[in-house]
């Protein structure tokens, strides 16, 4: 028996457990550059048009932060590799999270111990996660390449691009394997892993934006992958660097994992206070402890970073629209008729609202998690009524999204105001655009609450399915020319386009009434049913 015995079996177990999740994200990532390419190809037909587009986008330092340095040649493939570079960051995040999911999470749950007592080598768990991620990433890479070839781009560049995308998740899977060794809790491992991706992204971005700091781009592992320059340079040798780094980081992960006990982390676990602070005396105080992490995350991620991005790019994208008559017509047909920047802001705030709806649903589902883990039972056996317990979570499911949208709107408005030089006018208009989304967000959270009260086991499935329906209807419904009756199913269809459009109060009121009705139905059901339903 070697240290790797059982790797194959464990890899099969991973594929079995992720038989739904794995194909979904693979397909999603494979389709991403393809959809970008087909859309761009119809809008920008000649090299001159594409060069103009690149120059417009490239004039915004914020976009260079995301896309990297402008491509040397305006061919379609190079433009897509550049515009789609954020996809590589997503691949890197998937790599980190996937490996932690199949190593540290398993260990924390105690399942690793069960497997570790069977004929499984010391390295098998980490090796199986890395192996599965590598194969899946290469498959995505091939799909990306085939998609790009189908758009009449050269095969060499297509495969360089596909391999670059695959490299991102393969290399950062190894990073995830290292961070999984550090802490006892999966949450901390995820945090450290995502921070490494963020740091690589930031260092690379600084190198690409700031003149004289371009060497920074070579310090960051993500930077190497950006430097592949598919379709212009096709620097294949960079993949050699990535391979060496991947092997080295993976070997480090295996060494660290072999040196520690199962279940233990290299960093000592932090101790908590021996007694509760005076404030921790009610269900709301407990809910704050349980929800504050994700609330901070959403406020920082979407509220501040998203707000900066939406507000900062609005003017650039408006200039872009002014240059392209066809695009301008399309966007004005879909949305409001006033300024192009308004169209952009209303659209991006709408997309941000869908993301915040995901937060609202997950905060509402926290009740279900607490119930299924039997933790609600201990609380409800004390002097806490069911309504008071539910209310402590609903505060976060409804006011949490409101706080995130408020911060998003404020930051985006300030940022846009600074770029136009008229903060006083921009802030209230953009803020209104953010807040007007809330009734639609609340309907989805309220639906989740209703199902939690009436049919608790189905709450996660119904909540996420409803969100998926809204994503599909909102993002591609118009393109698929679906009937208006079908589009009306999504609460987001009824949200007025602000800034730019006119605000009609009636739909907002109706959505709010639906929200209240759903929450009341859920709470009534929850008061009457058995707890816990497991």
């Amino acid at each position, binding site marked *: 028996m070697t240290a790797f015995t059982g790797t194959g079996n464990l890899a099969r177990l991973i594929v079995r457990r992720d038989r739904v999740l794995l194909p979904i994200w693979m397909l999603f990532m494979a389709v991403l550059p393809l959809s970008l390419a087909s859309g761009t190809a119809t809008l920008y037909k000649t090299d001159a048009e594409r060069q103009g587009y690149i120059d417009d986008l490239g004039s915004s330092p914020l976009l260079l932060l995301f896309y990297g340095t402008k491509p040397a040649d305006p061919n379609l493939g190079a433009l897509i590799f550049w515009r789609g570079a954020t996809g590589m960051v997503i691949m890197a995040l998937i790599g980190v999270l996937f490996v932690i999911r199949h190593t540290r999470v398993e260990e924390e749950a105690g399942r690793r111990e069960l497997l570790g007592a069977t004929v499984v080598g010391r390295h098998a768990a980490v090796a199986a996660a890395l192996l599965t991620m590598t194969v899946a990433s290469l498959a995505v890479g091939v799909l990306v390449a085939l998609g790009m070839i189908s758009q009449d781009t050269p095969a060499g560049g297509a495969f360089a691009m596909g391999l670059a995308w695959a490299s991102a998740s393969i290399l950062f899977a190894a990073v995830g394997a290292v961070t999984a060794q550090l802490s*006892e809790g999966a*949450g901390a491992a995820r945090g450290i892993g995502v921070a490494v991706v963020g740091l690589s992204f930031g260092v690379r971005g600084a190198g690409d934006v700031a003149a004289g700091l371009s060497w920074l781009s070579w310090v960051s592992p993500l930077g190497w992958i950006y430097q592949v320059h598919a379709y212009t340079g096709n620097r294949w040798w960079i993949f050699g660097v990535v391979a060496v780094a991947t092997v080295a980081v993976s070997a480090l992960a295996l060494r660290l994992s072999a040196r520690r006990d199962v279940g233990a982390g290299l960093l000592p676990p932090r101790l*908590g206070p021996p007694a509760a602070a005076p404030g921790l005396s009610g269900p709301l105080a407990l809910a704050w402890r349980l929800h504050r992490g994700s609330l901070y995350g959403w406020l920082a991620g979407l509220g501040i970073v998203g707000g900066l991005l939406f507000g900062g790019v609005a003017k650039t994208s408006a200039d872009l629209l002014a240059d392209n008559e066809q695009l301008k017509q399309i966007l004005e047909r879909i949305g409001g008729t006033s300024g192009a920047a308004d169209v952009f802001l209303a659209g991006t705030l709408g997309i941000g609202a869908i993301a915040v709806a995901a937060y609202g649903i997950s905060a509402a589902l926290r009740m279900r998690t607490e119930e299924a883990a039997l933790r609600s039972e201990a609380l409800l056996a004390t*002097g806490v009524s069911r309504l008071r317990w539910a209310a402590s979570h609903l505060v976060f499911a409804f006011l949490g999204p409101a706080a995130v949208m408020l911060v998003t709107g404020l930051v985006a408005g300030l940022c846009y105001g600074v770029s136009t030089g008229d903060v006083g006018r921009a802030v209230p208009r953009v803020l209104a655009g953010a807040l007007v989304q809330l009734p639609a967000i609340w309907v989805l959270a309220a639906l989740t609450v209703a199902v939690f009260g009436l049919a608790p086991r189905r709450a996660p499935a119904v909540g996420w399915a409803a969100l998926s329906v809204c994503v599909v209807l909102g993002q591609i419904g118009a393109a698929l020319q679906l009937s208006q009756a079908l589009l009306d199913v999504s609460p987001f269809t009824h949200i007025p386009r602000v800034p730019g459009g006119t605000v009609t109060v009636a739909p907002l009121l109706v959505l709010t009434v639906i929200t209240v009705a759903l929450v009341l139905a859920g709470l009534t059901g929850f008061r009457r049913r058995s707890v816990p339903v497991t």
Partner: protein
Amino acid sequence: MENSISVAGLIKRFGRTTALDGLDLTVAQGEVHGFLGPNGAGKTTTIRILLGLQRADGGTVRLLGGDPWHDAVSLHRRLAYVPGDVTLWPNLSGGEVIDLLGRLRGGLNPARRNELLERFDLDPRKKGRAYSKGNRQKVGLIAALASDAELLLLDEPTSGLDPLMEEVFRQVIAEEKRRGRTVLLSSHILSEVEALCDRVSIIRQGRTVETGTLTQLRHLTRTFISAELSTPPNGLADLPGVHDLQVAANQVRLQVDSAQLDPVLRQLTSHGVRSLVSQPPTLEELFLRHYETSRHETGQHQTGRHETEPAT
């Protein structure tokens, strides 16, 4: 004196399965009551109904003079509950959970809390995720025992505790009893039940099959008898309460329900007893008999109470 718990004819169905099928349970104020039964017999379901977390489909339930479903919150201030598998919030320390649960029950005695931490040898600074099963159980126990609740509902509270800690648990419960607290103790550990409980109820497939003091229950067990007689016996098989009868010439081996011992001995002596070995009944035997019967009968329709039901 009013009973702390009185349950009669309790019925609970989950879809097509019947979890509780006419369960009776009476716990007098100030007593420690053992609640026994094989896995799946309905112990946890009963406790959840007593907590008002689940609603009964039939029968009557009174807890501390109130209705557990309608008066849940006010009753909960007077009781403390420890589930069989205490689950903690991964990012809260054990000390925080003890304090939180205590405050939600209306306050806990800080001196008592610290004394219990000491006696159960628990580090309250560890985070929930870092505790072993036994230590999670201690968190739940300390939170319940440090409260001023008049009734303790304990659902297999010592699962995962080591023998030393089990001993501590016994001492603490004995102290609680002296203070006049009422305890419903669901358990599988016979020595624990024998050491602590005034009365015991055994349930099987959602019904109470035995209830009474331990002395009463001992009468329900079977005595094993092996005898050598002067003449081959007859008529033994016809006597009530005789089981597993084996006769080989003058040798007799049998088991007899303790309540039927006298007629069997009379029959034996009438044949001239040369030697007699009798093994006294043990509680283990009684429990095992109920547990095993339950296993044999699983899936079958149950027709009535167990045959050892005392004659009325």
